[in-house]
């Protein structure tokens, strides 16, 4: 389809160079984390104080392409990495939160042995709450961007109905696992991938989503595919419960800032301010942004970067 190809090209040119505020990382390299190659992306001077940014599930480090440069411009060395299976990191055989946390420790250990500020969005925020509880010595400050899980509303259903729903969820996941050895992400034009992503990120602009495709997908003869490991899947099941993460909050010793978007979205946790406030650690605070969704740092990069920089008090 020559027409589609031409449209892809035109969008490609637009998205690669023109999204306002995008700054390509100053340094990109891979680290070995126990045999898994982790892609690291840095903005700012290599000699500046380090600040870590941790992305959410089904995202990747380059989703910080606008937000991170604003922190770097204020004097920070901003380090983000692609979690295993995401972005430019290796597709691992196994995925788990413990694995993600070990990979995070490998990156942090490679950068600094001193406490540093850490910003985590969505799943990345939840991971960092767990790491801050387990290894507080790594953290000078913790910023959580709409990443505090809370118990989801349970539908009013009988135990039989809930069991049936669980059966469907589990068999669906197992059926998926039976296909993963040969599965690939669905190819499409650049704008098709952007539109697909837009179904999960309805509040983000099409131009931004096109930019994400250019850094989060790769192109072959039959089109673009997201880089994320096709064996990864939304949902899943297991013994973990969302409400367990928030119970780690009150004991955190480092300065804590939470920033929640009030607008609820599919990729968010559905956590509301009144869920968080009772669990805030001593001296911690939680800001709520009206008319902002789950991706607070993408919808309002200047506002959120300003709040973070005020909270951190400046690099040394």
């Amino acid at each position: 389809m020559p027409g589609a190809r031409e449209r892809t090209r035109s969008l490609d040119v637009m998205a690669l160079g023109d999204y306002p505020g995008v700054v390509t990382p100053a340094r990109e390299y891979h680290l070995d984390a126990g045999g898994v190659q982790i892609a690291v992306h840095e903005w700012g001077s290599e000699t500046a104080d380090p600040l870590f940014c941790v992305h959410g599930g089904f995202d990747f480090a380059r989703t910080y392409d606008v937000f991170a440069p604003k922190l770097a411009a204020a004097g920070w060395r901003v380090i983000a990495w692609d979690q295993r299976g995401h972005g430019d990191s290796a597709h691992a055989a196994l995925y788990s939160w413990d694995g993600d946390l070990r990979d995070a420790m490998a990156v942090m250990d490679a950068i600094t042995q001193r406490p540093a500020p850490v910003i985590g969005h969505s799943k990345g925020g939840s991971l960092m709450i767990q790491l801050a509880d387990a290894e507080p010595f790594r953290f000078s400050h913790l910023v959580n961007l709409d990443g505090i899980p809370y118990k989801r509303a349970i539908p009013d259903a009988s135990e039989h109905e809930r069991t049936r729903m669980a059966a469907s969820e589990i068999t669906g996941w197992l059926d998926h696992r039976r296909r993963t050895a040969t599965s690939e992400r669905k190819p499409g034009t650049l704008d098709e991938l952007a539109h697909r992503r837009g179904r999960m990120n309805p509040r983000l602009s099409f131009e931004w989503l096109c930019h994400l495709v250019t850094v989060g997908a790769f192109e072959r003869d039959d089109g673009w595919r997201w880089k994320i490991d096709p064996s990864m899947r939304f949902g899943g099941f297991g013994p973990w419960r969302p409400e367990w993460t928030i119970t780690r909050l009150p004991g955190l010793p480092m300065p804590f800032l939470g920033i929640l978007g009030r607008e609820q979205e599919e990729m968010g946790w559905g956590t509301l301010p009144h869920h968080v406030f009772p669990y805030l650690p001593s001296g911690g605070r939680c800001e709520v942004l009206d008319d902002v969704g789950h991706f607070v740092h993408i919808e309002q990069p200047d506002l959120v970067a300003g709040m973070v920089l005020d909270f951190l008090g400046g690099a040394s």
Partner: protein
Amino acid sequence: MSGNASHPVTMLTHNKVQLALHELRGGEGRALLLLHGLGEQSPDTVPAWAGSWPGPVHALDFTGHGRSTVPAGGGYNAEILLADADAALAHLGEVTVVGRGLGAYVALQLAGARAAQVRGAVLCDGPGLAGGAIGPTSQFFVTLPPRPTPPDPYALFEMSRDLRPPDYATLFVRLALEGSGLDEPIAVTNVVKPPWLAAVADAVGVLSTTLPEAIAAYAGLPS
């Protein structure tokens, strides 16, 4: 299919992992599938207690164990091992499953997850039976050096502390009971019962018995 001096081994593909499924004894009819404990591997021969089983006997090496792939960087959980067992189920068709220790927990999950294809799950004592806590705990994380031979140290570390809330375990009993058509799809033979297993043993549809009696009971089920 590959093999050694004692029995044929089929390598199954589960995502990026090759799983060794050992055919300890061939034959017709429903297979008995053996799932080993944490840090173990499949036996070389049919265990004495399984000698009376009328059909074929197979045993699976979980990821990171025996002749199966040892992946880089860990990331184990019981659900991934359940998917290992499900790969064996896809190959064998209908089975009765016997699990030791960690394998008992996975056998329970398989009986619930694929209730129509599992004709009885027998839970036995063995390494990794208890697992970890039943809720959130203080944690630490370590990077482990690789071992030259299986089992994978990450499997040992992560599967000795995976969360096993009792109400999560009993979910699989309900699934097995509702989906199998059997009155007692789970048999508990364990002497020791950690919290998840105590809850399972108390649930409706769970038979408390001995291993030989459980084998005999499930061997007599029509396919």
